[in-house]
C-alpha cells in the first residue's frame, strides 16, 4: 500500500479501496477552465462572481466554498531555454524534446518570450490532513479511497478547518454557514466513475487514478520535461517525507510553487501539536502557581 494515512486503509479493513488521487500535469494545461465548469455543474456549486481581476485570465481568484477547481494563470518573461546556450546540436535536441514533450504551445516566439503557466488547483487530499485533524465534530473524514470529505449533515460551521489548512482550500459558504470543499467526487467514485474535472479535461492535464500508479507516471513525465530543458520542473506534494506526508492530489509544476499561489513547504499543524500542548500545560501550571502566590503570598487575605 502506498501512502498510508492514519485512518486509511486500516480502519476500513476489507472495505478499503485503493487510494485514489489526482495528478495535475500543469505542463499541458491550456487554461480552458473546463474543470472549473464541470466541477460546478456536477456538484451543483453556487455561483461565485468575482468580477474582473486583471490577473491575466483568472477571474476565479482562489479555491473556496464555491470554487473547488481553480485555474491559475501566470505570465512570465523568461528566456527560452530551448534556444539558448550550448552547441547547435544541443539546442536542436532540446527544441525537439520540447516539441515532443508538448511544450511548444506556450513557448512560442524567438528570444525573450512571454511564458504562460497555467495550473488547475484543487484540494490536495493530504496524507496528514490538518483540516480533518482539527475538525471537532468529525464532519471531515477519511473515505475508503483515502480522500478527505466534509459531511455536510454534520458540519456546524465552527470554521476551525479554514485557517488550519496550509493551502487555504476550505472556506465557509455565506448564507449557509458550513464549510465546503472538493470531495474528489466521492459520489462518482462510489459508482466507478472518474471525477467530473478529470473527465472534462481535454488535454489530460488532470489525471485521475490510483495514487501509486499516478506517481510513477508523474516521475516519467518529469524526466521528459527535465530532458527538454525545464530545469525548474518539479513534482509538488509527491514526496511522503514532506510536511503533509504527501498528498492525494499532487502536481507537476514548471516553476516554484509560490508562483502558482501554492505554499513551498506546507506543514500539517498537527506536527507541532505536542509543543503547543506542552506550552499550554506549562502556562496552565504557571497560572496555578501565580494564583497560589497571589492569595497566600500576602500577609493578610
Amino acid at each position: 500500500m502506498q501512502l498510508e494515512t492514519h485512518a486509511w486503509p486500516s480502519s476500513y479493513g476489507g472495505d478499503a479501496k485503493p487510494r485514489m488521487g489526482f495528478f495535475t500535469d500543469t505542463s499541458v494545461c491550456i487554461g480552458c477552465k473546463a474543470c472549473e465548469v464541470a466541477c460546478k455543474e456536477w456538484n451543483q456549486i453556487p455561483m461565485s462572481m468575482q468580477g474582473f481581476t486583471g490577473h491575466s485570465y483568472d477571474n476565479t481568484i482562489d479555491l473556496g466554498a464555491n470554487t473547488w477547481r481553480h485555474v491559475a494563470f501566470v505570465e512570465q518573461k523568461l528566456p527560452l531555454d530551448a534556444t539558448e546556450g550550448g552547441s547547435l546540436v544541443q539546442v536542436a535536441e532540446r527544441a525537439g524534446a520540447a516539441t515532443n514533450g508538448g511544450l511548444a504551445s506556450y513557448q512560442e516566439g524567438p528570444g525573450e518570450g512571454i511564458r504562460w503557466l497555467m495550473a488547475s488547483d484543487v484540494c490536495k487530499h493530504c496524507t496528514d490532513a490538518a483540516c480533518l485533524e482539527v475538525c471537532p465534530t468529525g464532519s471531515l473524514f477519511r473515505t475508503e479511497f483515502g480522500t478527505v470529505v466534509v459531511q455536510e449533515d454534520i458540519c456546524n460551521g465552527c470554521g476551525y478547518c479554514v485557517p488550519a489548512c496550509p493551502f487555504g482550500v476550505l472556506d465557509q459558504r455565506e448564507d449557509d454557514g458550513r464549510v465546503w470543499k472538493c470531495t474528489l467526487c466521492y459520489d462518482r467514485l462510489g459508482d466507478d466513475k472518474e471525477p467530473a474535472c478529470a473527465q472534462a479535461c481535454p488535454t489530460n492535464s488532470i489525471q485521475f487514478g490510483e495514487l501509486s500508479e499516478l506517481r510513477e507516471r508523474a516521475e516519467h513525465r518529469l524526466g521528459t520535461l527535465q530532458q527538454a530543458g525545464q530545469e525548474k520542473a518539479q513534482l509538488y506534494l509527491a514526496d511522503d517525507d514532506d510536511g503533509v506526508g504527501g498528498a492525494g492530489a499532487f502536481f507537476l509544476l514548471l516553476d516554484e510553487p509560490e508562483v502558482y499561489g501554492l505554499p513551498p513547504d506546507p506543514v500539517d499543524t498537527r506536527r507541532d501539536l505536542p509543543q503547543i500542548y506542552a506550552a499550554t500545560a506549562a502556562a496552565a501550571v504557571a497560572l496555578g502557581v501565580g494564583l497560589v502566590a497571589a492569595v497566600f503570598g500576602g500577609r493578610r487575605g
Partner: protein
Amino acid sequence: MTEPRSYYGQPVIKEPVWTWEIPLYFFTGGMAGASAGLALLSEIRGNDVLARRAWAASFGAVGISPVLLISDLGKPTRFFNMLRMFKVTSPMSVGSWILVGSGTSTALAATNAWTGWFPRLGRVAKPVAAVLGLPLSTYTAALVANTAVPVWHEARWELPFVFGSGAALSAGAAAAIATPVTHAAPARRLALAAGALELISSQVMERRLGDLGEPYSEGLPSRLKLATGACILTGSALMGWRGRRSRPIAAVGGALMMAGAVAARWNVFRAGFASARDPAYTVGPQRARVDAKRAHAEPAGRTDTAPPGGEPLVEVGSPANSDRQ
C-alpha cells in the same frame, strides 16, 4: 526581508472566518478559569468575602462563553455536534469538553458559595472548577496556535503564557472591582502582577518572532496594542496608588485593566488575520526552509546560477488587497 514571490499578491492560506465573539470569548473564558482558582484559594485562606465574588465572576463569565461560541457557529443549531466526539488532535474539541466541565462545576460551586445549597456536590465541584479553570484559561492559545496562521502558529511557545497572564489579570481586576477593599488584597496583587506579565510576555513573543511578528504592531493590531498598554498601565497605576483605600478608584483601575485584557486578545486575533492575508508571511519562512534544505542536499561546489524563474509582468508581492478587512 525581501518580498517573496507570490501569485498576484493573493493570500496562500485563508483568513479565519471567526467574528467578534471569539476574541471576546478568549477574554471571558480566561476570566472564568482564573476566577475559579482565585475563588477556591481564597476560600481555603478563609477570605469568604473575596471567594464568593470570585465565584460569581467565574460563573458569569463561564455562562456567557457558550453563548458567544454558539453564536459564532455557521450553524448554531448544530452546536451539540461539538460533543459528538472527544478528539485530542483538535484543541477546539478538547476545549469544548473543558468548557462543559468547567461550566457545570462552576455553576454548582457558585450556587453553593452564595446559598449553601448542595454542600456535598459543592465540595467536589469547587476543586474541579478551579483545576479545569487553568486549562480553560490557556487552551484558547493552543486553539489558535494549532493553525497555519503564521503569527499564531510560530508564537506557540509564548501565546499560552500571554493568554494565561490575561486570564489572571481579568480575574484579579474583576474581583478587585466587586470586593470591598479590605478583603481584595489578593485580587489586587494578582491583577498587578499579571498585568505586568501580560505586557512582558507579549513583548517577548514579538521579539522572538522578529519580522514575522510585524502584524502584531501594524494597522489595527498596532492601535489595539497601544490601547492594551495604556489601559493596563493606567489601571495598574490607579490600583497601586489608591486601590487599597478607595473602592471607586480600585473599580476604575480594575475596569481599565479588564479593558486592556480585552484589547490584548483582540490584538492577537486581528494580527492573525493580517498575517494570513499577506502571502509574504506564509511563503517567506517556507521558502527559506526549502532553500536551506536544497543547499544542504547540494553541498558547495555546484553553483547553480539559473535565474530564479521569470520576472513577473505585474508587480506582485505587496498584497493588493491589504485594505480588505
